[in-house]
């Protein structure tokens, strides 16, 4: 059973999400692009899921790379 807790980071678009994925990989933070959960937004694009443990560092890495973060949400 998967017991990890996750957060999602919202960005402007899939192009931004792919850039974020690379920035995080370079920083050694595992991430996955997933559909934006419906309860968070009705956007039809993707967002970045990371372990909740790393979310602050992930946000910092992204912002240092010039990526605007639209929102951070904990998910189940």
């Amino acid at each position: 059973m998967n017991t990890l807790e996750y957060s999602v980071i919202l960005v402007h678009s899939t192009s931004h999400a792919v850039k974020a994925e690379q920035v995080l990989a370079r920083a050694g933070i595992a991430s996955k692009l997933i559909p934006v959960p419906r309860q968070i937004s009705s956007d039809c694009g993707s967002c970045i899921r990371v372990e909740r443990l790393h979310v602050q560092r992930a946000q910092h890495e992204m912002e240092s790379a010039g990526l605007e973060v639209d929102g951070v949400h904990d998910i189940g």
Partner: protein
Amino acid sequence: MTDLDVIYFDNAATSWPKPPVVLEAMNHFMNKVGANPGRGAHRRAVESGRIVYAAREAVARLVNAPDPLRVVFGSNVTEALNLALNGLLRPGDHVITSSMEHNSLMRPLRFLQHRQVELTVVPCSPQGFLEPEAVKRAIRRKTRLVALNHASNVIGTLLPVGEVGAIAREHGLLLLVDAAQTAGALPIDMQESAIDLLAFTGHKSLYGPMGTGGLALGARVLEGDLSPLKRGGTGSRSEWEEQPSFLPDLCESGTLNVVGLAGLEAGIRWVTERGVEAIRAHEMALTRRLIDELRPIPTVRVYGGQDPERQTATVAFNIDGLAASEVGLRLDEENAILCRVGLHCSPAAHQTMGTYPAGTVRFGFGAWNTVEEVDQAVAAVRKLAEGRP
């Protein structure tokens, strides 16, 4: 490549053949990926998004653009130039261009003149050279933009974009460069040359497929100053009925040509692996050989600066007493040499060169061409020039 049934010297129109990796990348996308990037987020959609992003990165790295997210894709350089010119210029603005431009830049500017945009066309020499000081002298209080080709598609002459870039910066103007003939063929550094908007096409020296191109934006171009050519679905901000204000989505409505962009990324990868400098050296050697062999033929007139260092691998010439169209036809029919004749969509350039309206014959070399092909072509031209059957 020596096993082709033709000698393909029309690379200035579009490069051919395409590297095998380009076809493989396009095949891979069609067979194994296929999804719409950024519309939905299933694994294939994300993969498709990664392919598009890799193409943005490839372009940004090649031309030293500040950010892959500021590389906007479209169908070709013509669309990119239309986006830049229509997107930036407002009634009352003044813009400076040269007399060596392709119609893809000239026609949108002539159109904008009817919309109260003021235009100065700075004359070039008959060899196609532009004096940076002449650009400086044309600057007015309302000048907003300088728009130039990096190299002429007719005679290959390089324009001094770096020097003009420095002048533009000094006067607070933006510089737009049409790099259709040079992206991939010559080193380009947007930041060092102070290029604010670089328009490129995928199907020439980037060795990608037709239907790909775009505009790389420097940091000085503000999103708020750029009005998109079209508005519509972007896959982002679906809840908004207003166009997103951020790049690249601001300027990329509608599903992209992802199969084409997969090919473009592979083409740029191929160019980068060969090395832009190495391709340039090879093309310069072919150009030098052609010019050196054609020049002594008494009835052949070679146009341009006739210096491979100051031009791309494009050479324009005429044979006295023979129409360019006749030369082209006979080279094709008798020697399977494929080139382009006429005005090459650039009436202004031919007026500058003194070859309007007759036009010229144009050979455009690419990375695949060989010395043997150049020698065969020289022999064929010599035969026509000497009036031998």
